[in-house]
């Protein structure tokens, strides 16, 4: 870091993938951008952590299924070396009795596979088609910035304007309205019988939230996630999940931009009511006429700017938003491949889900809500080394376990319960891969509070804020912030707290940068 008060065209707070994407779009437009990342490594929720200088762990996120093709194309990421080690990965739903289900996403194959096992073959096809159709009308809305209303008055009216107005056609609206209030359990009970499928669907519908499958709005979440899926399906980048951030950093530096790690913004400098720079926690000040923040909206506006610069209602609504983290990570370094009973090596390289039934997902959600550890945790397991042997020494493997429904605040405190949590999670894995413990060399455990302190993910929250139908589109994160601009002149939001939400998509970053550039082209800044 050099000198006080360096001048840049734009400063991006937060080197999560969205901040980096925003910076790269601005850099592409000729701006000199400075990215400030609080942590030692950039990437935010999509970063690679080194373990013992030998293992490249997917520290937080471990799969990419929604990276926007338009971002890849606009930024020419492939030309800069970004590629998938594997894509279109199958989903494997583990069955306690060994009758696992493998879904490829190909309707014919899946129906044949399920029918052969007497597991809802035709029903699943019908269900999947309905999901596909519902996602089809939502998807265009997620792939462009939302319509924004002028004021935050009357949420109902806004909902009509911001959400329904976008859903073109009577049928789409009907579909949205009927689904917005529905729970995924209702949907599953209406259409599916096989417990494993119910468990899988409930898992996907609630992942990344504290919702339980019986909660209203979870059917919509399932559609939402599906609508954000990229054509490449479930994928793993070559070089690990951090490859995206690394590619973006190289790109930004090639555009004369700078990326500073270990540079925590402690305050946004104001000139009257215009943002004009950033003070780092080490006292260094940097200035720029444009500030974008990829940190969570609440963090940005209440802590970095300060409630005084906002109208009280907005400050109030931002401060009420509860931290929604309910996901934990366990990353293990293994000196061999554990034997998953009943799975082929190819299937072990897929997305492995342990969620035997909808009721088990419900149960773990309820215990998490009560601040307790679920007896039988539900989880998603990925072994990236099946596709990329550069991530670990030869013959060694990485097992990335994403444990769903883990409370942020736990009874007795995380200090005392951490060991028990790990034991339970590993025991659950061993039910399917009994020898897994024999291979464990080292590992790291990240509870929701750990994700916050270690990787800057507020509240350990997947989406930087809620993701029910009333937190989306022109209502995300708040109606007056939905257009990426804020009431503070010169300050924009660009993280997952904005439309279209969390996951490694790059879309919030892209839309924010485009909004900035459009506003500039129009001659105004807000």
């Amino acid at each position, binding site marked *: 870091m050099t000198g006080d008060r360096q001048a840049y065209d734009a400063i991006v707070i937060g080197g999560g993938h969205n901040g980096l994407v925003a910076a790269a779009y601005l850099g592409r437009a000729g701006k000199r951008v400075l990215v400030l990342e609080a942590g030692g490594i950039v990437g935010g929720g999509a970063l690679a952590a080194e373990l013992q200088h030998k293992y490249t762990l997917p520290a937080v996120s471990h799969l990419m299924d929604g990276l926007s093709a338009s971002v890849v194309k606009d930024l020419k990421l492939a030309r800069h070396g970004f590629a998938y080690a594997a894509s279109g990965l199958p989903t494997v739903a583990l069955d306690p009795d060994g009758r696992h289900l493998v879904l490829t996403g190909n309707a014919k194959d899946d129906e044949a596979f399920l029918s052969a096992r007497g597991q809802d073959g035709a029903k699943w096809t019908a269900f999947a088609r309905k999901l596909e159709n519902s996602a089809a009308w939502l998807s265009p809305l997620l792939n462009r910035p939302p319509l924004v209303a*002028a*004021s*935050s*008055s009357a949420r109902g009216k806004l909902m009509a304007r911001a959400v329904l107005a976008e859903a073109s056609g009577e049928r789409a609206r009907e579909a949205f309205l009927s689904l917005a209030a529905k729970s995924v359990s209702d949907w599953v009970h209406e259409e599916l019988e096989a417990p494993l499928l119910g468990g899988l669907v409930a898992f996907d519908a609630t992942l990344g939230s504290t919702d339980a499958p019986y909660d209203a709005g979870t059917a919509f979440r399932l559609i939402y996630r599906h609508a954000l899926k990229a054509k490449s399906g479930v994928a793993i980048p070559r070089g690990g999940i951090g490859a995206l951030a690394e590619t973006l950093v190289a790109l930004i530096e090639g555009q004369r931009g700078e990326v500073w790690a270990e540079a925590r913004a402690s305050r946004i400098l104001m000139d*009257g*009511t215009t943002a004009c720079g950033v003070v780092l926690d080490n006292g260094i000040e940097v200035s720029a006429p444009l500030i974008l923040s990829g940190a969570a909206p609440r963090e940005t506006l*209440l802590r970095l700017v*300060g*409630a*005084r*610069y*906002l*109208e*009280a*209602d*907005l*400050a*109030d609504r931002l*401060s009420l938003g509860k931290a929604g983290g309910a996901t934990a990570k366990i990353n293990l370094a293994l000196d061999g491949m554990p034997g998953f009973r009943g799975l082929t090596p190819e299937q072990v390289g897929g997305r492995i889900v342990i969620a035997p039934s909808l009721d088990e997902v419900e149960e773990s959600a309820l215990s998490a809500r009560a601040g307790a550890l679920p007896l039988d945790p539900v989880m998603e397991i990925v072994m990236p080394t099946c596709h990329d042997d550069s991530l670990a020494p030869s013959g060694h493997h990485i097992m990335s376990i994403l444990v769903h429904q883990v409370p942020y605040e736990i009874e007795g405190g995380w200090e005392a319960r951490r060991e028990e949590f790990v034991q339970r999670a590993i025991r659950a894995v061993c039910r399917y891969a009994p020898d897994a413990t024999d291979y464990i060399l080292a590992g790291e455990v990240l509870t929701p509070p750990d994700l916050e302190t270690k990787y800057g993910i507020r509240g350990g929250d997947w989406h930087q804020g809620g993701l029910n139908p009333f937190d989306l589109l022109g209502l995300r994160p708040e109606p*007056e912030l939905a257009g990426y601009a804020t*009431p503070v002149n010169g300050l924009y939001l660009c993280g997952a707290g904005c439309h279209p939400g969390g996951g490694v998509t790059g879309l919030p970053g892209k839309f924010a940068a485009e909004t900035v550039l459009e506003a500039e082209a129009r001659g105004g800044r807000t």
Partner: protein
Amino acid sequence: MSGGLPFRRHLRMTPLHAEVAVESRTNDWVERNGFTMAGHLDTPETEVFARYHRATLADISSRRRYRIAGREAMDCLNRLVTSDISKLEEGHFSPVFFCEENGLLVGEGSLARIGDTEFRLFTEEEVLSWLRRNSTGFQVHAEDVSAEGAGLELAGPLAEAALDEAGFEPLRLLLAGHAQTRELMGMPVLVLRHVGDVFEFWPEEDDAVPLWRHLMQAGREAGLQAIGEKTRDLVRIDRGTPRMGTDYLGALSAVSHDHVRTPFEMPGEINVDFDKPVFNGRAALRRMAVKSASHRIVALAVDDARDLTFAVVCKGERQVGVCTSLTFMPETGQHLALATVEAAACSAGGLTVEAEIRRELAVWREKLPVRIRPRPENR
């Protein structure tokens, strides 16, 4: 409050209740903010005469008072209200309005700057939770001090004379808009002077009764008369000043937005300062400012001395407004009212009210012409 059930209704008495009760010849009581207050203490004619030609004293302890103090009290309050109070000097007070994010009024009152970092806010309605919500992010503390002390209002053309008699001559020099703590009979009393010779005294609780007695006694010479809420209300209606909770509802308590008003719909000078970069409702009010308001609160007069009431304001056959405050002015034999009327209907004349007229037990309806009265400063 005593230890009864939380939902049991308690009528509370102000520290001055016993003194006021002594003056009552009518046994007419009303409720204000949970307090039992005098309606009329004497005949309306006597009270109104005293208020307009002599001097009156009233118990105003039911008004809500808030203490807002802290290093950033001014910043916090300046975001709260629509006017710019950074110019409010120590020892002064000013009328304030405050809005929520849609530019709808949440509250109104008088804001007094007691010290560099200490303010008092006087309001009709409860606003503590709103103040607290507005305190986030500021070094400020807001508390309800309504239960501390009491309030007295000395008013009328001979109010100054009454002050002289009481030995409070220096208060004559207090200018309208000032709010200062003075030593009266050895007691610290916050004194506010409003236009139109209205003095408010805010003594500590134990000092309230001695001050009341002293003023009552000294003022007899000047024809000082104790009055109740109804005459104070008459003066308010005569002056064309709407009151929240009566003439319109606060945005946080109203169920329907139809009953909520914006600053632009209030009578008189519009108290919104857009030069101030951040304040609650600014964005919405700015959008509103370019359009004309749909409704207005106006002062009405019906020149008819019969015993009558009315609520509906019409233009031709169509209802265009609702009357929310009504009083009879014995001095002129007029009915005075405040009403919310469609702005478009306010310009040309032709307004009527649907009056119910009584004579002993007979009641009948008549359409009576009504006129919009200019604001007092223009009269």
